[in-house]
């Protein structure tokens, strides 16, 4: 009943031969496995097996909550628990995760392995900053409980370590109390990149959640025009009673033809979005599902990109060169007539404890690109610019970065590799991405 031509794919539909084997028993499942994956929401090849291996351990069935203390918010759960399920369970009781990525269809294990950041990075850091303990199966088969104090090197290398230092079996972290289950939000329009970045910076001084959407294909004076979104949890008096129901996602029924998304269609869509917002600011109390997970309303939206799929290039640029650095990157994209289907800009706070975690102080720019024959050259050009600007890229989104580029961006790599090698001298744990970027054995 097993097909031999099976493949496993990341969210961007980049795939590798092999299959995901799921079990609700992670201890048994990870015995001898080379990689774990959660819900496969990383865009590139982070969750795909290396070429010589045909199986990756799927954690999504291991979804039990093992403890929750309503006095402190401390929660312990199996690594396959999804953020979607957790929110459905605890938001109605006044709790939310301290940090959420832009989709709820991720697992706790994936949130730790990528050390995800959210709209509140400038105040609350990454998810890993709120994690208190991890139970791991390390390469030699042992099961290790680590915390920032106990085997702290392993803990810090695992937070943001993309599954390469151990299989995460259990995660303990603190949930955050929220005053209501609703978000008080505002949005303002900005006519170009400089205004957009200034508005983002200004918003972040007063608001815990901020992010900007930019029109990635508009050029000239309109380069980087967009909308800044900001929000905070509504106080009980401002919000409806009770919690909102999660929306029922609409499915994309089939793959769209590969060329559906192009600079013309995206430009029209962006212009409409920009114009519809209007000149004046908007305020509303909205559901956190809409505020945090706008894309989750469309299930399988990756099908909009056709069979070849998409990649995301997300980099963070240090603050020293200011807004000019972001402008620089957008100009490069405009010059190359890149089809930037989505462009999201976020200002980041300080670097966290994860040895190889992506965020650092500066501005993060994430762009979604349909994959075509020019993608490799475009990503190379972007990465060369990122290196010049002193920035770095996010592995959870990546499928095209070259090993030498990554090395040039990551002075922290040696330190992380030293810890990894101490726990896994034979490099048993590896992924398609680690073979590509770190030169691991296939």
């Amino acid at each position, binding site marked *: 009943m097993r*097909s031999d031509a099976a493949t496993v794919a990341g969210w961007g539909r980049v795939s590798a031969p092999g299959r995901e*084997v799921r079990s*609700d028993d992670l201890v048994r499942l990870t015995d001898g496995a080379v990689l774990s994956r959660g819900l496969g929401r990383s865009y590139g090849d982070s969750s795909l097996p290396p070429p010589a291996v045909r199986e990756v351990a799927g954690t999504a*069935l291991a979804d*039990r*909550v093992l403890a929750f203390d309503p006095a402190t918010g401390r929660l312990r759960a199996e690594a396959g628990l999804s953020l979607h399920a957790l929110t459905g369970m605890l938001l109605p009781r006044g709790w939310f995760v301290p940090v959420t990525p832009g989709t709820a269809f991720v697992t706790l294990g994936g949130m730790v392995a990528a050390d995800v950041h959210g709209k509140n990075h400038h105040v609350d850091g990454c998810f890993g900053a709120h994690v208190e303990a991890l139970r791991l199966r390390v390469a030699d088969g042992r099961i290790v409980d680590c915390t920032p104090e106990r085997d702290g090197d392993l803990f810090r290398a695992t937070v943001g370590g993309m599954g390469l230092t151990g299989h995460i079996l259990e995660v303990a972290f603190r949930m955050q109390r929220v005053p209501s289950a609703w978000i008080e939000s505002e949005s303002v329009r900005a006519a170009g990149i400089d205004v957009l970045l200034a508005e983002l910076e200004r918003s972040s001084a007063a608001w815990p959640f901020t992010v900007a959407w930019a029109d990635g294909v508009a050029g000239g004076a309109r380069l980087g025009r967009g909308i800044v979104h900001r929000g905070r949890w509504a106080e009980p008096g401002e919000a409806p009673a009770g919690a909102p129901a999660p929306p029922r996602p609409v499915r994309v029924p089939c793959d769209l033809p590969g060329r559906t998304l192009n600079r013309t269609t995206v430009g029209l869509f962006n212009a409409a979005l920009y114009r519809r917002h209007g000149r004046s600011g908007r305020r509303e109390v909205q559901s956190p599902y809409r505020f945090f997970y706008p894309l989750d309303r469309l299930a399988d939206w990756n099908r909009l990109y056709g069979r070849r799929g998409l990649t995301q290039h997300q980099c963070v640029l240090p603050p020293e060169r200011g807004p000019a650095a972001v402008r620089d990157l957008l100009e490069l994209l405009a010059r190359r007539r890149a089809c930037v289907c989505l462009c999201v800009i976020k200002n980041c706070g300080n670097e966290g404890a994860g040895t190889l975690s992506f965020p650092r102080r500066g501005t993060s720019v994430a762009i979604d690109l349909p994959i075509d024959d020019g993608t490799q050259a475009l990503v190379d050009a972007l990465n060369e610019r990122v290196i010049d600007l002193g920035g770095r890229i996010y592995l959870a989104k990546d499928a095209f970065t070259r090993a030498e580029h990554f090395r040039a961006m990551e002075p922290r790599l040696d330190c992380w590799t030293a810890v990894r090698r101490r726990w896994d001298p034979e490099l048993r744990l590896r992924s398609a991405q680690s073979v590509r970027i770190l030169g691991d054995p296939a």
Partner: protein
Amino acid sequence: MNAVLLGATRGMGRALARLLVARGDALCLLGRDPAELERSARDLQVRGALAAPPPAFPCDLARPETFAPALDAAAESLGRLDVVVVTAADFAVQTVLESDPDRARALATVDFANTVGFCEHARQILLSAGGGTLCVFSSVAGDRARSSVVLYGAAKAGLSAYLEGLDHRYHRQGLRTVCVKPGFVRTGMTAGLDPPPFAGDPDRVARRVARAIDRGRPVVYAPAVWRWVMLVVRHLPRAVMRLR
């Protein structure tokens, strides 16, 4: 209502227990592995916002001597039993069982003889209290024999027939039997197999089964479409069934 579940540590039993605890039913768990039982009980405690985890007692379908003590302990801890659910079962494809006769005998024993033995205890407890619901997971594999799951299908066919017979015999005395016939559902049990069209999710199966329990429906296919799939499969000519 008060429900006892055998096999709620994983899969569809886990999903059903979560649904029941979230709507306020009182639960008691039975299972073979104390550590797994404890983890599942804590999961249900959090999901149901309970002061304490639901009680759990050891019960192994491979060891019939555990049935009566487990069910008695459950009845005592809950006060009264309204529903007994059995999702526990063993599964293996025919190729595996043909190369391992001991495993084959064990599967036939667990999935038929011992499941029936457990149900007999449950039936007596329910009837002695004036009635209740016995909900047991059989399978579409019991509706039509298939070459890939000969023995498992035979055990499930026997189980389905047993449950139908119980319904005929004890319905008037207040026993409601619910025979659940899952099609392919994505759980750990089927993790090694390629999902066919119409594969289901445990949460949706749980919603359907809970409704069947509430209404006392004697047979329920889950996902629902499998009722129609099996209507066709049951009528396929033998020559077609021999093809695979």
